[in-house]
């Protein structure tokens, strides 16, 4: 919608042509009408009205909004200009009801009007501006939302990616943390913005004791107020001897990690993870946003290098996981985690000796099933 400065005086200069006088003439005319004017006669003569200036008699008088909407719905294609006792806060409504322009009152600030016009980035209900409604936009697949987020934020700093997740999906976001070797970075980034975001820790009952200590230490240091330890359900039934990891590590991961995480799926549409491309394997092409079975996974650290991580630890004097001293560069459950050497991938110590690189929590269930089938064959 165009904003016309008061001096342009669109309304007042118009010849006072009544609708009656339109009969028998073929001229295209401009008319001025009060907000209370009946729409039907205007619509009847709509072909010959090139411009209609609708005068609002008071800033609380909303009749002009309905008039414009009715005219637009009725096929009026001429120019609609609002004038009269208007305030900037009318701007979004005028635009949505089908006005092409608003004539600002004397002394009004164009800047105020422009800002007011842009107050809202979306609208729920359909209106004469034919803007896509929130309802229609919601119908757009999540995939499209994720693509849009990646296009917008692929090269953004991690803090901006975290901020986008927290502000665009408030109340629906959790952080998934292993409280492992590099976990402090992602947790610090989130806590800087909101320490009350739920942090999910998969307490597999198979963690190194130092990991549990480190969890508590980081929780306190970062002021995290909602760390939730998710425990396996009915582990005694599915793993009575506690050695499932030995015979079937996939089933063990499923019991102790995949299922507990799935149980809180309804509570969170977005999970922030600490995964990075430098981890290698399936993570080499990791984007900042991805869709995993209808849940958005946010990877703010996707493109961080080892040096950047180290620098972040130092700059923020974050405590280290005690096991990093011993060469553990990626830390999971004790039975399936070993140190890795500098010339290996950081995650080389996970499920060492097995053709397994992921526990499955970051992958679609179909991928997990196919992997298990592949290894079995």
């Amino acid at each position, binding site marked *: 919608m165009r904003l016309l400065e008061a001096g342009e005086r669109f309304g007042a200069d118009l010849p006072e042509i009544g609708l009656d006088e339109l009969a028998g003439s073929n001229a295209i005319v401009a008319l001025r009408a009060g907000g209370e004017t009946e729409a039907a006669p205007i619509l009847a003569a709509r072909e010959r009205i090139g411009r209609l200036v609708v005068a609002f008699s008071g800033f609380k008088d909303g009749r002009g909004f309905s008039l414009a909407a*009715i005219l637009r719905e009725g096929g009026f294609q001429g120019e609609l200009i609002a004038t009269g006792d208007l305030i900037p806060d009318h701007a979004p409504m005028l635009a949505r009801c089908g006005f092409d322009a608003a004539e600002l009152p004397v002394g009004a600030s164009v800047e105020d009007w422009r800002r007011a016009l842009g107050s809202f*980035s979306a609208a729920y*209900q359909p209106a004469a501006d034919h803007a896509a409604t929130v309802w229609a936009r919601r*119908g757009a697949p999540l995939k499209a939302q994720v693509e849009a987020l990646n296009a917008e934020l692929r090269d953004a700093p991690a803090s901006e990616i975290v901020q986008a997740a927290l502000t665009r*999906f408030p109340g629906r976001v959790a952080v998934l943390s292993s409280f492992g070797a590099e976990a402090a970075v992602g947790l610090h980034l989130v806590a800087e913005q909101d320490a009350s975001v739920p942090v999910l820790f998969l307490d597999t009952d198979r963690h190194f004791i130092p990991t549990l200590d480190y969890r508590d230490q980081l929780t306190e240091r970062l002021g995290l107020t909602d760390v939730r330890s998710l425990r396996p359900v009915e582990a005694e039934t599915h793993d009575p001897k506690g050695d499932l990891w030995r015979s079937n590590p996939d089933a063990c991961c499923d019991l102790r990690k995949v299922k507990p995480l799935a149980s809180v799926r309804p509570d969170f*549409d977005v999970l922030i993870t600490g995964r990075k491309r430098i981890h290698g394997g399936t993570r080499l092409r990791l984007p900042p946003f991805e869709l995993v079975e209808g849940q958005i996974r946010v990877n703010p650290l996707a493109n961080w290098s080892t040096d950047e991580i180290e620098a972040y630890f130092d700059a923020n004097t974050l405590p280290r996981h005690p096991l990093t001293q011993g060469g553990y560069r990626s830390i999971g459950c004790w039975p399936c985690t070993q140190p890795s050497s500098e010339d290996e991938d950081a995650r080389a110590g996970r499920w060492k000796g097995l053709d397994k690189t992921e526990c499955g929590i970051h992958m679609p269930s179909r991928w997990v099933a196919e992997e298990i089938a592949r290894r079995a064959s």
Partner: protein
Amino acid sequence: MYRYDEFDSRLVAERIEQFSDQVARRLDGRLTEDQFKPLRLMNGVYLQLHAYMLRVAIPYGELNAARLRALADIARRYDKGYGHFTTRTNIQFNWPALVDVPHILKDLARVEMHAIQTSGNCIRNVTTDALAGIAADEVEDPRPWCELIRQWSTFHPEFTFLPRKFKIAVIGAPKDRAAMRTHDIGLEIVRDDTGALGFRLFVGGGQGRLPHIASELKSFIPAEELFAWLTATLRVYNRHGRRDNIHKARIKILVASLGLDAFRAEVEEAFAALPKAPLAVPEAEVERIKAYFAPRPYAAAPPRFAAFDRALMTDPAFARWTRNNLRPHKQPGYAAVVISLKPVGGVPGDATAEQMDRVADLAERFSFDQVRVTYEQNLLLPHVAMDDLPELHAALGRAGLAEANAGLAADIISCPGLDYCSLANARSIPVAQALSERLSDPVFQDAVGEVRINISGCINACGHHHVGHIGILGVDKQGEEFYQITLGGSPDETASIGQIVGKGLPGEAVAPAIERVLKAYLARRDAGERFIDTLRRLGADPFKEAIYEAA
């Protein structure tokens, strides 16, 4: 419970930005007070007698623990440690500073709440039955439709500068527990002969100086045409409602002055002209919203309720509370629990921050993290397992919230009155307090049973006195407070407006007079009759005599 997605969150955040900008423009004079007033009202900010008041929307009355705790926190940090729940299931804070309002709005946004359109000449918070999704007589859960209407009406470009305020209620059952017929538009979910879902559309209800019970405009509108009919009705009102006289600006006056048939013809003409496709209710959106209101993961009912039965036998206070404060739940083994905010001598509808926190805890523990606000200005825990009731009752007792008077004479609906309100002519709260003390005898209250008593401090009727079985209206006569009594009002599906019985009484005479009315009922009732039944059978005369007996 409905949860915001990114669009909902962003729109609320953008509204806070917009309001902050409006406040800034007001402070440096770019907006006059006149221009600012409707804008602040549309964000819930009133100027009251002593301070600003902030009315926060509780859409269709639904809260969870996090939201209730946020309200408690606001009460503690920005107010004097309490809040007031209203008949339209909002909460009002009476003492916030204007400069704090944007901060409060941000705190609210964090728990997916807002104060949008809680006042002003726009479409207000949508209300519903507190037993939505629970009641056995329900055709369909009205809450998803309320949420849909909330979204449709939020920042509606055409209907934000209406002649006057506009209130919508939706019920899903034939029994009206939401005073639906006192609303500008009332919707009752029904099915037609083919089983298709739709609404009975009522229009023109309202209280105030000229009370009206809403009339049926359409006996059935298909669900997918809901927005088209709402648009048509509101458009006729926006175009033709009076703007010259604030007392005659509500839609009820337009309907009455045109006549229902002529008004209907106008709406039907407007409906016919509307483009139907863009206004069709989006099916996918309805399904998306409905998913948030799926039944809770209830436990199967045990063969017998051991803990419940034991407490019933051994604890008379518990037994009385279950008789009065439980509402049936369609899930076997569960009940809905009314938490009365009507302690003896208390302020109806007020809850302290500590009480809100306690109720939040109890909702988490006993009611799937859900709490509701009711039309009667009480709270409700919607899904409590029968065997949890004794523990819940004990916990409520410790918080001073186990008053067993829900639906009884002391369950008084009242506006804040002249103690807070700049419109009021008389005080409501002291009258309510005196009355609740006078009627505090539980034996008497139980004997009287179900009766609806409402108090308004002025003719605007926020205490819904017109539809109280017994209504009390504060008036000002040459600087003195007097109270007119009305009899025979009703807010339910048999809605009626109470009739004034005679000259007003001074404040101290009200409680004894009401007590005499209730005693007259006890003396004259037939078996099984409620107060309103006896009153309708006998007419007002015997009760009128009781009121003026002492005078």
